[in-house]
């Protein structure tokens, strides 16, 4: 069985409020991916739609997205909260590797603007055990805040360390024409007591530590090596797809300073790809909150446990650093349309590996990594791509 590659990538503008409906939004990313990959809907023989349900009224969206995109093969639905479209890519890999299909469109889409921010937090708060945790009034910033708090107590992490992650994000956000937040933010704005960026959300996390909800879509078209031969573009190869889970109930976690699902997904992806952390030239990690990016450095072996903060202090993850991370602005700048996020991260790495990343191009990268996490480490997904 041959290799599996990515032939085309696309994403919509991520915005506070998209002008299109769910399926129309999905089409924006699909269209760009088809044009990018120089492949038509007729050549694609299956699709996986990825979203987190209930933000919109549409039930069973996969066939509807396929219909609107002109896709005729079987349609599947993938959901792992914020990592849904990375899960979709893993499923596409399996569908192709099994020989069942040879070209699969993975469409991530989320329309969050049809409900209020508080209502959407309630939905995210129910992405946990609704019997034992949701009745206490949980939401995502508070879940990640629990990990920031424990990290502070164990390793001496500070609010300023976390603010530095946002400074990096907003160094690159203004360069990304698909990002929802394109303002530049300096350390003073992010740490000054009278700045609205330091208003508490869920202590110790503050406004500046949190990404914004967004409407958006992404599309990754995955093909077999054989199929790629009939197409004019060269694919970027999928070298490793790692996935793992951890307990939904935080009461069952071992510690609150790391996310084992991401660690285990990373180990699986490195092993499958036959590479080590030293081979990674560029990475996209799941920075839904500033603390999440630091946890990612530590989960992936970029830094030792507790040392993620040193990486950001030393600017090792900037464009010209040791491992450039989230140089497209990350979720903190792009916004986080749950089901579309992983596909957007993959799009960035594919463009980097092709040398098409423009102003944010890392010098001659050969291997890139995508880290995409659902919930507070409930679902861990790491995808390694290579030229």
């Amino acid at each position, binding site marked *: 069985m041959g290799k599996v590659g990515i032939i085309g990538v696309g994403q919509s503008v991520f915005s506070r409020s998209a002008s299109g409906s769910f399926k129309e939004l999905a089409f924006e990313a699909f269209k760009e991916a088809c044009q990018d990959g120089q492949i038509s809907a007729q050549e694609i023989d299956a699709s996986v739609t990825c979203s987190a349900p209930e933000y919109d009224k549409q039930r069973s969206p996969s066939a509807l997205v396929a219909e609107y995109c002109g896709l005729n093969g079987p349609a599947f639905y993938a959901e792992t909260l914020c990592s849904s479209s990375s899960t979709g890519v893993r499923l596409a890999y399996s569908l192709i590797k099994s020989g069942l299909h040879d070209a699969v469109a993975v469409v991530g889409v989320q329309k969050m603007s049809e409900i*209020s921010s*508080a*209502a959407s*937090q*309630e939905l995210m*708060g*129910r992405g946990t*055990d*609704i*019997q*034992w*945790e*949701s*009745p*206490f*009034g*949980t*939401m995502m*910033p*508070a879940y990640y*805040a*629990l*990990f920031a*708090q*424990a990290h502070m*107590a164990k390793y001496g992490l500070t609010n300023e360390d976390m603010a530095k992650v946002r400074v990096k994000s907003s160094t690159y956000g203004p360069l990304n024409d698909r990002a929802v937040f394109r303002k530049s933010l300096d350390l003073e704005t992010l740490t000054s007591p009278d700045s609205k960026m330091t*208003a*508490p*959300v*869920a*202590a*110790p*996390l503050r406004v500046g530590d949190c990404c914004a909800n967004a409407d958006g879509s992404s599309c990754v078209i995955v093909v077999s090596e054989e199929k790629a031969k009939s197409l004019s573009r060269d694919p970027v190869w999928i070298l490793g797809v790692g996935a793992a889970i951890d307990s939904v*109930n*935080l*009461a*069952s*976690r071992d510690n*609150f300073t790391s996310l084992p699902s991401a660690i285990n997904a990373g180990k699986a992806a490195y092993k499958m790809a036959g590479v080590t952390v030293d081979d990674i030239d560029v990475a996209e990690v799941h920075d839904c909150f500033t603390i999440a990016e630091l946890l990612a450095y530590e989960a992936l072996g970029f830094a030792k446990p507790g040392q993620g903060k040193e990486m950001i202090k030393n600017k090792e993850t900037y464009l010209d650093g040791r491992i450039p991370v989230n140089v497209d602005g990350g979720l903190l700048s792009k916004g986080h349309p749950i089901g579309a996020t992983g596909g957007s991260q993959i799009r960035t790495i594919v463009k980097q590996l092709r040398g098409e990343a423009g102003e944010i191009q890392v010098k001659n990268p050969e291997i890139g990594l995508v880290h995409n996490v659902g919930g507070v480490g409930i679902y861990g997904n790491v995808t390694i791509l290579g030229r």
Partner: protein
Amino acid sequence: MAKREIDDRFKKFGTVSFTSISKVNDFVDSLEQGKVMATRCPDCNISYFPPRVDCQNCLGSNNEWFDTTEKEGTLATFSKMKYGPVGFEDDLPYTIAVLDFGDFKMFGRIDNNVPDDSIKIGMKMRVHVNDLQADQKNFVFKPA
């Protein structure tokens, strides 16, 4: 013919409950008696919180209840929330937390009367039943 009674006691747990029927509905009766109960499989000696009737180790369903309010736990982590989801506005601000009892952990809230600056990871705490509005109940952690 009499209508079959639906045992939906679990709807009384928490500010907003998203569950009404569960095999551990007795947990709610215990709350009314001031107890916060966990379960343990007598065959495997594994403690479970959240409580469950089924043991995932031996697949048996012989779990027995035990009270946790006499036990001392260690605060593992916490976060004071300034914003909350729909339905929890009247509770704000509140602090969620995880207490570590050694052989099990517990997710809940810290009692609102505990001063913020006295809350430290590693402090010893106990769990207490807490009365909410409209006859709802949950549990909160207080310094031991």
